[in-house]
């Protein structure tokens, strides 16, 4: 190790010191610590009572299952954010990757007797290949056209699953493959949490390095990326492969837990595809953190609504019966008031409250863009991008 790389390492480690972190990151570390301590907290006397109350289920066992399922969903949302949130190429069918990962691993395990620890790797590999298959066309078809491709691809896969239902189990899906860590509530919870932390750390570091800046630059202006001597093709394919592999990993591990199984409705339905987008955009598109938080929220909100035993007087329906309807209403409302995502809004609010200037924190916050020095948020950028394609489609002028 040279002196230079030693000092760099020290700098990097110094940035990981929780006391030196900015407030928003302290909150994140605290949240993570809470998730880690959660199974322990429920067994404590008084505190446990309180913790069970705030869990999205009636008992702590089911609560841990639901949180574990939400952690998987948050991984799905992060995998979407890594490609669509950063490059602005919106995928409307990310379930393709979850399904390829989940089904591959399940079939390798059940059909060929591979240990789930090995079959998961097979799922990741094939999902990465699926990433290439979507990423390479993405170099030629862009914007709305690519979105159409991503929308249709999982539908084709679903039709394949249906007409070859003797192999893929049709719309019912496959039976449950072997679990990675048995049926334990706590062990499965930690499996989900461990994978969540690993995926988050990987994507966070990648998007905060130069790679993140380059991906957001692709979203903003592809010509500027070329003019900087950077190959936009290479980075786009990389983003798709990375996203596919991580989506596939989450999907594969998910089916090997008691909370998930390889079925179209859990991995690749239109609802899953749309919810993933809602989660990432709601949390804050192009931030990874936003997708993680948004994913947890979107996955757990219906669970919480299911717990409400209140019957709306006039129509005579209980809240839990309408949980998905209410969920949709709430997200629509939130998307309207926080177009840049809850995370960006929260950070801006926090900075105003603490009276600090974002520019003084030194490091680039969101892969080269911090919420305050952006005149345009990613959603607006992507809209602009799509507008351009539509203009060109109807004979607009390039120059």
């Amino acid at each position, binding site marked *: 190790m040279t002196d230079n790389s030693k000092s760099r390492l020290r700098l990097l480690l110094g940035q990981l010191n929780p006391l030196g972190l900015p407030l928003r990151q302290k909150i994140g570390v605290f949240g993570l610590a809470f998730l880690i301590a959660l199974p322990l907290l429920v067994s404590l006397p008084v505190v446990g009572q309180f913790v069970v109350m705030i869990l999205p289920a009636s008992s702590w066992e089911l609560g841990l299952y639901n949180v574990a399922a939400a952690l998987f969903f948050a991984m799905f949302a992060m995998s979407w954010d890594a490609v669509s949130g950063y490059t602005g190429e919106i995928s409307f069918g990310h379930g393709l990757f979850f399904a390829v990962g989940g089904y591959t691993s399940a079939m390798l395990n059940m059909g060929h007797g591979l240990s789930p620890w090995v079959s998961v790797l097979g799922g990741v590999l094939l999902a990465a290949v699926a990433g290439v298959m979507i990423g390479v066309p993405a170099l030629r078809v862009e914007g709305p056209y690519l979105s159409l491709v991503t929308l249709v691809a999982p539908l084709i896969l679903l039709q394949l699953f249906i007409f070859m239902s003797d192999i893929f189990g049709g719309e019912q899906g496959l039976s449950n493959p072997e679990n990675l860590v048995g049926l334990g509530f706590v062990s499965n919870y930690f499996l989900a949490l461990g994978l969540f932390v690993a995926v988050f750390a990987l994507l966070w570091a990648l998007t905060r390095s130069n790679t993140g800046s*380059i991906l957001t630059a692709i979203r903003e*202006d592809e010509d500027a990326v070329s003019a*900087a001597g950077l190959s936009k093709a*290479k980075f786009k394919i990389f983003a798709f492969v990375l996203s596919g592999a991580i989506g596939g990993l989450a999907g594969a591990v998910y089916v090997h837990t008691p909370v998930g199984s390889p079925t179209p409705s859990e991995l690749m339905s239109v609802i899953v595809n749309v919810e993933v987008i809602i989660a990432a955009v709601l949390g804050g598109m192009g931030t990874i953190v936003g997708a993680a938080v948004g994913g947890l929220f979107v996955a757990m909100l219906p669970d919480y609504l299911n717990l409400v035993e209140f019957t709306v007087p006039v129509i005579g329906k209980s809240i839990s019966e309408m949980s998905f309807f209410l969920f949709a209403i709430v997200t629509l409302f939130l998307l309207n008031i926080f177009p840049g995502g809850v995370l960006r809004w929260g950070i801006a609010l926090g900075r105003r409250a603490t009276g600090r200037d974002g520019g003084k924190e030194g490091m*680039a916050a969101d892969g080269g863009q911090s919420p305050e020095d952006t005149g345009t948020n990613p959603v607006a950028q992507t809209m602009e991008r799509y507008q351009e394609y539509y203009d060109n489609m109807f004979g607009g002028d390039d120059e």
Partner: protein
Amino acid sequence: MSADTTAEEAATATVDDEISPDDGILAVDGLRKEFGGLVAVDDLSFAVQEQEILGFIGPNGAGKSTTFNCVTGTYPPTAGTVWYKGEEVTGTPPHEMVKRGMARTFQSFAPLEDRSVLKNVALSMMNDNLVTMDGLLGEFHEEARAICERVGLGDRLHQTPAELPHAGMLRLELGRALGTDPDLLLVDEPFAGLSGPEVESVSDLLLELRDEGMTLVVVDHNMRGLLQLIDRAIVINFGSLLAEGSPDEITNNPEVQEAYLGGGLE
């Protein structure tokens, strides 16, 4: 009339001579670009010498931008050959040309609106490794800051492009191009919309870059501010070479005057 004849001689000499790879840092032979039935660039040949400032001049629609889009790889040419530093680079994609040391600025300005001036320049300095620790510590910013100061944006590091005045946008274009550490810099219409003192300060910067060993090609449709700056000029019209020579030879060339209807050469 002697000036006219020398200019014509110079022009014809280049048209007749075959351009070979080693005629200059950039050599273009028989470049042709058609869009459908329209011939935008018609059998154009020229060479750029190392460390010169070449003016690339022509009326609007003469094919200047198309020529440079072909040279920098934005469009593949219909026919013809481009050599850069003695190597054939015809049809090489834009980012590869940048890596080989050819940078350009955009006449229409293409900064990244979503980030600061400093981060715009920093993007140009990144190498394209997919997985990197670089940037996690922000170490590019020191060099990027130096470039910003050089192009006169030292006091606007944290502003977004939208906050810059017109001249600032041009400076940012130059900064982003310099960030790629080029040997040849194509500058597209640098003086459009600049005031007298601004023209002078940008000219000084370009001269300074040349003195440090850079080769510059300055594209413009008129010669205001250009004559003091350039060593040599190439004039094109309707996609083909019209004249070539020193600034004096160009201004006295009757064909050039004709092309501009006498009005363009202030």
